[in-house]
């Protein structure tokens, strides 16, 4: 909308009276009202709403200078019609915050009776109704050791994010096992996790299961007494529980062509993972047993092998360079 278009011709249609004796809308100065953008049917509590009022008369008149109100439960906010184009008049911005309680809300968008350029316009009102709803939340769970030794104590982190980026300090987090039993809890702090916009987090101390296996537990967020209502949420996370190690496997990684030691190669023995150091060595402490031993480095391959660990063991693996993922361009 341009700031100052030429003013439209003043005065609506010539005064006429219909056969039923009622003056047409143009003569009576009736207008249509709407919000731009439309107010959504659901608004999270405490979330500011920004909109403009758009007003049009039957004759498409330039109504700049006229005013529009928004009437809430406790105040009246007025804005002037500032812009006009193509028969539509637009106010400056209304920025209003709904109540912090959940429920139905109705504001009145009101074009007060007023005279503009010699035309008397009648008051027109439009109810603007919406429902205030709680903020959604979502969770992240990280720094979970896997594998973890059966029966050991360990810690993990849980972060919660409000869809309104609200500070969630004081909210509760529970950790639940597969049966739904609560086995740990924490209280959200007031400092967002680094690099995040508003992920408020806490550390939770836990006891590992008494048995080996793959476990899938959940973290649950309870909004509790936060200032603004929030919806509870949960997420799941998995980990492996293992027996105490008995032996050390040392894996030496070399280049199959040059026999040179290779660093930064990922090594996995069953659930255990490590990476080779500058000498090409990776160390994994493990209970006795049969395991799949896999190594990974982009651009190389080595056949996976099965290994039985019954004592401290040293294994050398020669990686074969794959044909280059050819840079054929050009």
């Amino acid at each position: 909308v341009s700031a100052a278009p030429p003013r439209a011709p003043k005065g609506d249609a010539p005064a006429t009276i219909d056969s039923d004796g009622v003056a047409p809308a143009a003569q009576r100065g009736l207008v249509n009202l709407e919000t731009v953008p439309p107010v959504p049917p659901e608004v999270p509590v405490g979330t500011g709403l920004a909109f403009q009022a758009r007003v049009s008369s039957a004759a498409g008149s330039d109504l700049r200078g006229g005013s529009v109100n928004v009437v809430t439960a406790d105040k009246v906010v007025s804005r002037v019609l500032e812009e006009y184009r193509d028969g539509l008049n637009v106010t400056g911005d209304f920025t209003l915050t709904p109540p912090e309680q959940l429920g139905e809300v109705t504001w009145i968008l009101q074009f007060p009776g007023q005279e503009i350029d010699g035309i008397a316009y009648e008051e027109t009102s439009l109810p603007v109704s919406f429902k205030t709803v709680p903020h959604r939340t979502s969770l992240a769970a990280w720094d979970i050791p896997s594998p973890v030794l059966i029966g050991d104590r360990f810690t993990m982190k849980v972060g919660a994010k409000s869809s309104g980026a609200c500070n969630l300090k004081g909210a509760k987090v529970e950790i639940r096992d597969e049966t739904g039993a609560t086995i740990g809890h924490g209280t959200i702090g007031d400092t967002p996790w680094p690099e995040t916009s508003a992920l408020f987090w806490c550390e939770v101390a836990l006891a590992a299961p008494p048995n080996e296996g793959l476990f899938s537990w959940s973290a649950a967020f309870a909004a509790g007494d936060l200032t603004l209502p929030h919806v509870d949420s949960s997420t799941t996370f998995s980990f492996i529980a293992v027996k105490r190690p008995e032996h050390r496997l040392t894996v030496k990684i070399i280049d199959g062509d040059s026999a040179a030691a290779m660093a930064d190669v990922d090594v996995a023995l069953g659930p255990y993972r490590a990476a080779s150091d500058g000498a090409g060595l990776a160390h994994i402490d493990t209970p006795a047993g049969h395991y799949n031993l896999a190594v990974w480095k982009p651009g190389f391959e080595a056949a996976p092998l099965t290994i039985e660990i019954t004592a401290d063991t040293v294994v050398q693996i020669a990686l074969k360079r794959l044909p280059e993922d050819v840079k054929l361009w050009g």
Partner: protein
Amino acid sequence: LSNSPKKSGPETSAHDQADAAIDRRSFLTSGAAVGAVAVAAMPAQPAKAADDIRWDREVDIIVIGAGAGGLPAAIAAREKGASVLIVEKNFDIGGRAMMSSGGLYIGGGNRMQKALGVQDTPDLIFADWARPERPMGRFSDRELVRTHADNSLEMFDWLEKHGIKWEAYRPAPDRLDRSRTRLNVVPWPNEITGPARGSGFVRPLAATARRMGVEILLQHQMTKIHRASHLSGRVTGISTIEVDNNYQQKTQTLNIRARKGIIVATGGSAGNPTFRTMFDVRLTAEYQAENSEWTQRTADGEIAAMEIGAALGGTACQTVQEDHLINKGRIGKKSNGGLTEPYPTSPHFFRAGALGLVVGNYQNVILVKENGLRFYNETVPNQDYEYYAAALAWTGDPKKLNGGGPIWAIFDADAVTREKWDLKPPHVDRNGYFFSGDTLEELAANINNEYQWRPMPGAALRKSVERYNSFVDTGVDADFKKPRPMYKIAKPPFYAAWSTPALHDSYTGIRINTSAQALDLRGKVIPGLYACGDSAGGFGQHGICRAATFGRIAGFHAAQQQA
């Protein structure tokens, strides 16, 4: 095999056969005769043409496109004494070749090969590039392959004469070569496309062309090729519009008459979804043409030629099942080429938006479709064409049944550390191609991209990640057999980077004969019309040598037409 006689195509008129009978070796002997006098693009007096077009300018030969095909075509035509005007849509010369890594398939037993002890002959080149083992040899027009092979030795000398500096042969044969014929050019100093060497091909040739009197009209887009009548007679000229840096029209139409010929060298069709889906209907608009920062490759030449009767040639060469014609590319930017990118200091960088991120280890990411679901083992090499079949499969858009929609690389803060990625501009394009979120649900909700037909379901993304993380625990990817999944996606913040496959070359285009003359649907020559490079079909060879070889042939041939 011995050198085959030159042919003009399956069905040619007597006039055309006479034209085609020009001994290619005569090109060499007359090449240096033209001085540096600028005779191109003489200011024509506005005049009414026979077909009622008011011509604004007039030259012997118009070349459409200042890239690897167009520049040799222009130089060759000038060598034969023709006046030449190149119209180029971009604000700089170079076309697709500027972003090339600058390696030509050129050999036949030249002095550099001999110095290396490489045994090569034109017959070997032909035998290699007509091999049936792979589609680019299997489906190529062997007449064109033979022509390429027969011209290779001459091309080496001719390009050198016109300013190309050779760096070295690559250490091993690639693609269909059995001899080492891939020769790198020396990059142009201080070029701002990296790590491309293609500047070392197009910059010297542009300098030579200008020195010889070729005029290059930048920021002029050809909009129409005119022919004496709709589907018969000679081509008479072109219409162009001047365009701005965003290819929007700036001025009125400029009509340019071509007395002898028009050479189409517009770079192919990889950037035109409507055109490319003629060959593979899956290649809908979400798949970007690599390096389109420098050249759009929107099939302008093919379409204009087809509108006056040109046929397509070698369409079986145009497959994305071969030769990196589709690839994973970089992540986090729209035009996600795999190797070469304009640097942020390049005047072309505004079209790129970002450099993109190179994934060093696909263990650090999972790839999900627009629905938040994984679809394949992420670590497969770039040549795994089953990966692309899965990537291009339908995922549920009721209004778009072809194409597979966006692919997103999903990763966490730990992956960023391991890959040593810098997520600040200019490395990623946060305007629709790179997103972050404090949680996976927030990340999914934040993805707002022009090709994402619905919001990514956050619950589906979370489920995908949780399941994948359990595979890291157990060591087995039960869904897609990724080799020993190594890293969980767990530590916030989380990221989604555009990782939709990118398209590379065009191996089909206007059907040509061995004189680079365009043929119509009945196999007849369209008098005066030529095509080369990715705009020409029939020879599935990647790179700038194919373009240059047939550009040079077109230039020589067109220059010897009757005005």
